[in-house]
């Protein structure tokens, strides 16, 4: 005789019943019944630590998935998971944030998934505890003070499970006028639910002895902060992964950049129907370039373009020969250019100490709204 146990975990969010200063990296499984913590699928073992099982799920949702050949992108919709808090309000202490939550600022333009050294800035000395950047939990293993209110941290990535991913500034999300320290990513001690933590919905099949036999899994993303309901309950909204993927927006209106004073046109083809720039160059300020590519080119708190970041962007922009970045210029007419080069240009202003930087895009004409083309491309 087999039986089934439902399990729900939020990848990257810790255990509400553990001391925040000495948490284990275990994935927390909220279940609706007893479940052995051993013998479960290895995907639930995080940093060599088996999952922690907390049987506090009350009520079970149904999970739909529907598609058809005429509506081929299936939808799983949004469901609600209900958890039961204890009389100490531990769930609320973990889930609920407030404006007074202590935070620091991430002082890196970018952190790769394997990066374990980060610089942060804040008003207080960091505690050796778990913290959150985006939808990933980190654990502070140690730090050095580099200067006032700035620390270099050694961290463990992907602490409560969940994938370690690139963490970088998103210039498209800058507030208007923000170009300096305010660009930083916030590091918080509690989960910032705006960042969409991934979660898993498991159904474990157990044998007559209660041992794990098999399971099925659906994944989703937690939407918003868990909501207290008729104490002691918390409702957690989950949007299924296929919906999260499908709703992703390709392109953002903020990537349309209105240039200030720029020069374009280098090599011009003068034909019977007019003069068309075959090769053009475009100067972008740091802010314009960052907005245009949605890539950070500077360190928070500074304004200088970092050449290695430009090199890195260029490498990534042209790494795949099957992907061609283009630029659309609209000045009444429409011009389509291939981006053929990206370069950091630095030159001196009127004084030797006043360097000016810009990003130069070299462009090759593809077509023009009046019909000009190169190489027969249309």
């Amino acid at each position: 005789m087999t039986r089934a146990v439902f399990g729900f975990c939020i990848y990257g969010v810790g255990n509400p019943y553990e001391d925040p200063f000495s948490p284990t990296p275990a994935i927390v499984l909220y279940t609706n019944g007893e479940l052995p913590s051993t013998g479960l699928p290895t995907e639930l073992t995080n940093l060599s630590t088996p999952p922690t099982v907390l049987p506090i799920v009350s009520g079970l949702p149904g999970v739909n998935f529907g598609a058809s050949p005429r509506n081929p992108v299936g939808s799983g919709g949004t469901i609600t998971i209900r958890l039961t808090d204890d009389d100490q309000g531990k769930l609320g202490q973990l889930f609920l944030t407030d404006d007074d939550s202590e935070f620091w600022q991430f002082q890196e333009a970018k952190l790769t998934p394997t990066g374990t050294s980060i610089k942060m800035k804040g008003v207080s000395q960091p505690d050796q505890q778990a913290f959150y950047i985006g939808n990933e939990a980190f654990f502070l293993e140690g730090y050095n003070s580099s200067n006032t209110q700035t620390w270099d941290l050694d961290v463990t990535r992907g602490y409560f499970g969940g994938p370690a991913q690139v963490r970088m500034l998103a210039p498209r999300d800058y507030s208007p006028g923000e170009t300096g320290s305010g660009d930083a990513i916030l590091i918080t001690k509690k989960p910032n639910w705006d960042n969409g933590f991934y979660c898993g919905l498991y159904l474990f099949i157990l044998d007559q002895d209660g041992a794990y036999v098999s399971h099925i899994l659906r994944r989703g993303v937690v939407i918003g902060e868990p909501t207290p309901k008729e104490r002691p309950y918390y409702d957690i909204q989950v949007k299924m992964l296929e919906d999260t993927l499908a709703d992703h927006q390709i392109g953002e209106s903020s990537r349309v950049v209105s240039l200030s004073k720029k020069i374009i046109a280098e090599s011009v083809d003068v034909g019977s129907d007019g003069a068309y720039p075959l090769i053009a160059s475009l100067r972008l300020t740091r802010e314009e370039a960052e907005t245009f590519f949605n890539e950070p080119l500077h360190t928070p708190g500074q304004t200088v373009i970092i050449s290695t970041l430009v090199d890195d962007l260029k490498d990534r922009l042209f790494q795949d020969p099957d992907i061609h970045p283009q630029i659309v210029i609209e000045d009444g007419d429409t011009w389509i250019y291939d981006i053929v080069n990206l370069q950091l240009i630095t030159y001196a202003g009127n004084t030797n100490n006043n360097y000016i930087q810009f990003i130069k895009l070299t462009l090759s004409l593809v077509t023009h709204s009046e019909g000009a083309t190169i190489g027969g491309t249309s």
Partner: protein
Amino acid sequence: MAGGKVIKFLKDLFSSTGSITGGNNGPQTPGASMTFKEGWVPPARAGEAVNPEADPPKIKLRYNIHKSIADTFLTLAVSTDGSDTSGSGYDVLVGGIGAGIPESFINIGSPAGSALSVLGNTKVIKELNQILNPKHTYPFDLGSSVALKDFLANECLAAQLMLGPLQNGKLTLKSWVHEESPTITLNPVNGQTVTPIRLPTLKRLNMTFGYNPIDLSPQFQRAFRWLGVSNVKPEQSQDIRLYIDGVTAAQTTESSPYMEKLIRVYYKMFGGAPFVYPVSVSMEDYITSGAEFGDAVTWSDPSVVTPSGIGISGAFFIVGVDLQYEAGIVNLLLLENKLTSQAQNQQQGFISPGFSIDKVIDIDSTDVYLDLSAIGQTSAFDPANDWDGFIDDMITKGEKFQIDNYDQAPSGSKEIPGSILAHCQIVLDGTVRYKTIGSRVRVRVRVPAAYHRGPITRASDLFIPGETNLVLPTLQTADQNLNSTLIEPNSNVLPSGQGFINLQPPRAYFGTNFSFGT
């Protein structure tokens, strides 16, 4: 512009203030090089003087991605910053253009050693990539937000794919036009009453292709309307954008994989407002069977109401999965699978042998007697040899012909939902009155009562003499199957003595003669 004179314009433009040095290494010592003055120079007037007062232009980024649908899907799904940290080659778009879904959440897998060994029903995306259509150029205008859903839905429609989650939680693409072997037999929970759900019918495919290089809008349009169908409502029409250019689209051989196949598949599956059936299985059965979305299954229910009468049995595929954890059941949504049956191994759309119905000899509540002429047959019809003895086999072996006319009324002028003609069977057995009269074949056609809703009282309920044709699909050889994009390379050869007759309303002959326009 060919032959235009190319002149270097830098000298005129870069004329006064500042000096430029190349290099990416931060502030540098200014060097002696070109100087420039600022100001927007409208490209069309590049030969004119710099106009610093001109309004600055707006610029936006866009990408042309030249990949297959599967590669494009993966690129858009997993890209975060383009650094391709995992080395899989899919995180190659910068700036958060991709959805940033962790690769471990997607059933990417590995390519097979040989594309020929890939089964068409694979759920491994890298395997699927090996047998999908070649690369297309997908232009993405990043200046305006486009939901990935819209792009994916279109590409899935064009490539006959579905996107959904597997039992292991990973998302994948799944082709629904390939044969499953073996299929899974469902064991529904006891006592459930299955109530069919009607899907909207499909009467027209609107295809667009090519794209304007300026604004990326489609350049060409082609509408395929079932012949004899008029007054197509929006919900009865399906838009599909093909990312192929107009020249390719105009070439029959190149367009065939897209257009002919698409039309055949969609006509076959959705031409007659098909039903989907909600069927419940136990959670345990669902898990142990391994059935997942998109899978082909067999299912039968003697009590379900269908357009053909009471009871249903056959091949279906799963288009919906509803996990009811508390009840311990899984509600599956099944769509009758008219593509993966053996009969579908024959290619519709080819010029086929067929019968025309010359005369209705007699009719009663269940039986109809017809005179048929073999289309294109100039000599006496030989049932034992013509068409590989197809007719003779059907008669002597008691096989059945299948009529699939998707609820279209025989007159062809309008559609009658739920028509008795939907999916009924014609039975030829050893007792038929059968004889040849020149090129004519007279057969007794029996329509079993269970397969229609009411008595047949008029010949026009079924056929219009002189107009209605019975079209036999072309039988495919194994080699032909290999060349077919509809049939997976390792599909079974059509067994002798089985096949479809597609009864098409007059003017609705669906072969290589398409209807153009709306």
